[in-house]
């Protein structure tokens, strides 16, 4: 199992490596966009899947990253990594007070608080014309160089590699995070916050920390997005994007690392393909998502895992049935 996973990861890396040579310009730009949203979904899964905090305002940190990087690139023409760092840190810095206030509440109340703050930030982005350009946003964000005097990132292939490397490094960082003692603590909070508190630790400190870390990754995704599209507008902070990020995580598989990335890709691809065929594409995407949530409750990753388990051992199907029944008994 572990060997197969390593093989898959290697195949994915090779695939990413050869993409710029075999794909057309348009396909390459779609794939770049998919990876950026994959990173956003991954960051949301850190708090949603691993800590059990459903945020309904994650677009705000994506948007903060986008505005931070856009402003840096427009006004100072610094290398892109500086802009990425600025965007990610800006998102993290704003997430700190918001997280401090939001983690006082739990469950749906937490979700609504994050939504409230996200809408607040959206309104600021919309109204602060001097800084953000209001509803027009900031246009003409340049893809500058990799470092001072270094290679230009203006070509689609170069930017594709930048996004791919950012995504892979972020996934590795998240993998290390969820396997560390800190990550174990997060999963303990998800399973039972009250029991965790009786062990003598304050769950809020852990929740606040992971909230900020998650916002940093979301900010990184946004910071990659602004130069990719060439603009940052209030739309990237709107709650619709927060909802879409939730859908991506659910489709891909909550509480896994590869799931949200795959979910984002499937989510965006379904929309892209269907909207090119029919005007009523929302009807079909809605139906597909409903069916996926009903029939693939563990998301894409959950479905593949279940399929691997049953095909690996003849007793697998019985085992799955039993685990299903145990779950049902637990309620």
């Amino acid at each position, binding site marked *: 199992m572990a060997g197969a996973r390593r093989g898959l990861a290697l195949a994915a890396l090779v695939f990413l490596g050869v993409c710029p040579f075999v794909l057309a310009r348009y396909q390459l730009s779609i794939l770049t966009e998919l990876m950026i949203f994959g990173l956003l979904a991954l960051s949301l899964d850190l708090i949603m899947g691993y800590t059990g905090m459903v945020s309904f305002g994650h677009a705000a940190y994506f948007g903060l990253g986008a505005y931070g990087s856009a402003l840096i690139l427009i006004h100072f023409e610094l290398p892109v990594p500086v802009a990425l760092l600025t965007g990610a840190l800006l998102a993290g810095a704003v997430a700190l007070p918001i997280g401090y*206030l939001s983690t006082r509440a739990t*469950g749906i*109340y937490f979700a609504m*608080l994050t*939504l409230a703050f996200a809408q607040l930030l959206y309104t600021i982005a919309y109204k602060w014309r001097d800084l953000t350009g209001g509803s027009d946003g900031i246009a003409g964000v340049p893809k500058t160089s990799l470092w001072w005097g270094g290679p230009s990132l203006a070509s689609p292939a170069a930017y594709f590699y930048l996004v791919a490397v950012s995504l892979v490094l972020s996934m590795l960082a998240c993998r290390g995070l969820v396997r560390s003692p800190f990550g174990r603590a997060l999963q303990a909070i998800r399973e039972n916050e009250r029991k965790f508190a009786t062990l003598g630790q304050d769950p809020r400190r852990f929740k606040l920390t992971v909230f900020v870390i998650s916002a940093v990754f979301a900010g990184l995704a946004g910071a990659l997005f602004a130069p990719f599209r060439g603009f940052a507008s209030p739309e990237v902070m709107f709650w619709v994007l927060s909802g879409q990020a939730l859908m991506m995580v659910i489709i891909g598989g909550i509480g896994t690392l590869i799931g949200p990335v795959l979910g984002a890709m499937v989510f965006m691809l379904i929309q892209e393909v269907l909207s090119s065929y029919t005007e009523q594409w929302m009807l079909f995407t809605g139906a597909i998502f409903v069916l996926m949530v009903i029939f693939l409750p563990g998301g894409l990753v959950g479905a593949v895992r279940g399929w691997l388990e049953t095909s690996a051992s003849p007793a697998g199907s019985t085992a799955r049935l039993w685990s299903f029944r145990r779950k049902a008994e637990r309620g």
Partner: protein
Amino acid sequence: MGISVIVDAFVVVVVGGLGSIGGSMAGSLIVGAAQTWGGFYLPETAMVIMYAVMGAILIFRPTGLFGEEE
């Protein structure tokens, strides 16, 4: 289609507190009044007044006005 109503209804229920019907009625009055008066006296804030009210209430009462403590 009605997508803004979904969020409005959510806000009302959460302000009042989950599981409290009276709370939802109070929440709807508070949110409605805030939106109408806020939009009239401070048109700049019309977009965000509902969320600001909800945020303020949830910060001081994390389970809404009449929600039960978990």
